[in-house]
């Protein structure tokens, strides 16, 4: 039995993003250190989100005054994580950390992400310690994204 299940488990460990409810995800919005966190809310079915991904993916290989981490928070439906999100991640070879946020009553947590957020995708929170910005739309190009972060 054990041998049969082992390879399956290893695959799941390697590719499957964690699925968290909001309380499980919230610490990612509150890290108190010197890193710039770029937290992007997206889904594979959201075209402007998908168009923006390469810009976000490029950030971690670029140079900034502070360390930088991109976290892609997927709002793909729970029943499409295996069928759509996981294949999408390997197909696009996404390198950033990916979390699935699965918490039905979004009204209870959208304001905790940012009060200015309507709930529309995509949306991005950028923070470092107590400094925080919110972007309710996709970034138009890499330069506008980078210039936002260069002195952050």
């Amino acid at each position, binding site marked *: 039995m054990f041998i049969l299940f082992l390879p399956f488990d290893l695959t799941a460990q390697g590719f499957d993003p964690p699925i968290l409810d909001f309380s499980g995800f919230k610490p990612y919005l509150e890290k108190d250190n010197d890193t710039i966190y770029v937290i992007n809310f997206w*889904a594979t*079915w*959201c*075209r*402007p989100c998908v168009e923006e991904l390469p810009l976000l993916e490029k950030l971690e290989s670029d140079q900034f005054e502070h360390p930088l981490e991109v976290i892609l928070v997927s*709002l793909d*439906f*729970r*029943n499409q994580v295996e069928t759509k999100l996981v294949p999408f991640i390997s197909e696009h070879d996404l390198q950033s950390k990916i979390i699935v946020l699965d918490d*039905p*009553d*979004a*009204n*209870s947590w*959208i*304001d905790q992400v940012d009060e*200015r*957020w*309507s*709930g*529309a*995708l*995509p949306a991005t929170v950028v923070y470092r310690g107590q400094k925080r*910005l919110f*972007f*309710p*739309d996709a970034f138009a190009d890499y*330069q*506008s994204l980078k*210039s*936002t*972060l*260069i*002195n*952050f």
Partner: protein
Amino acid sequence: MKSLVLYMIGFAAVAMTSASYDSISNPYSLGDQVDDFKLQNVDQEWIQLSEYKGEMGVIIIFTCNTCPYAQLYEDRIIDLHNTYKEKGFPVLAINPNDPIQKSGDSFEKMKIRSEEKAFTFPYVFDADQEIYPRFGATNTPQVFLLDDELQLRYTGAIDDNPQNPQAVNINYVENAIEAIVADEDPNPAKTKAIGCGIKAKKAG
């Protein structure tokens, strides 16, 4: 010098982002009376908001064909209309998306979707995108519930569980309607939901 220029670019980028956010401010607030408008329905007829004056209210829902969240709610929107039309709160569904951004949200595709799902309520097209900004609508699907004076009484989500209708705990719209019928203020009167950003026409 280089860093100063970059700093200024950065500042301009932040300023531009917040400006684009502010440009959709000043929409209707709770309690405001909604101005009349006229939009074309999938049956080619024109629907005017003032036609709803004899009702107890109207459930305006900005929705579309293509957004997966809107699709999750299609059957529930049909149920809402079937349940609440009798009680004086019919549904008026409005597609606010620019079909150039999203070809699946064209007027022709709306007709097809309406037929496929056998919508029993009007599904009108905000072709000039002049109506949704008045409401400050940002997502599909998004509800704006009006009372018999066509005053805005509730805005936001239909219920608290998009992915699983069987697991809904709070029916926000139904509760808001019941509150209006009981001559009370809906509580909550404002909710938020994850959805697809409305596809605005690109300038130029």
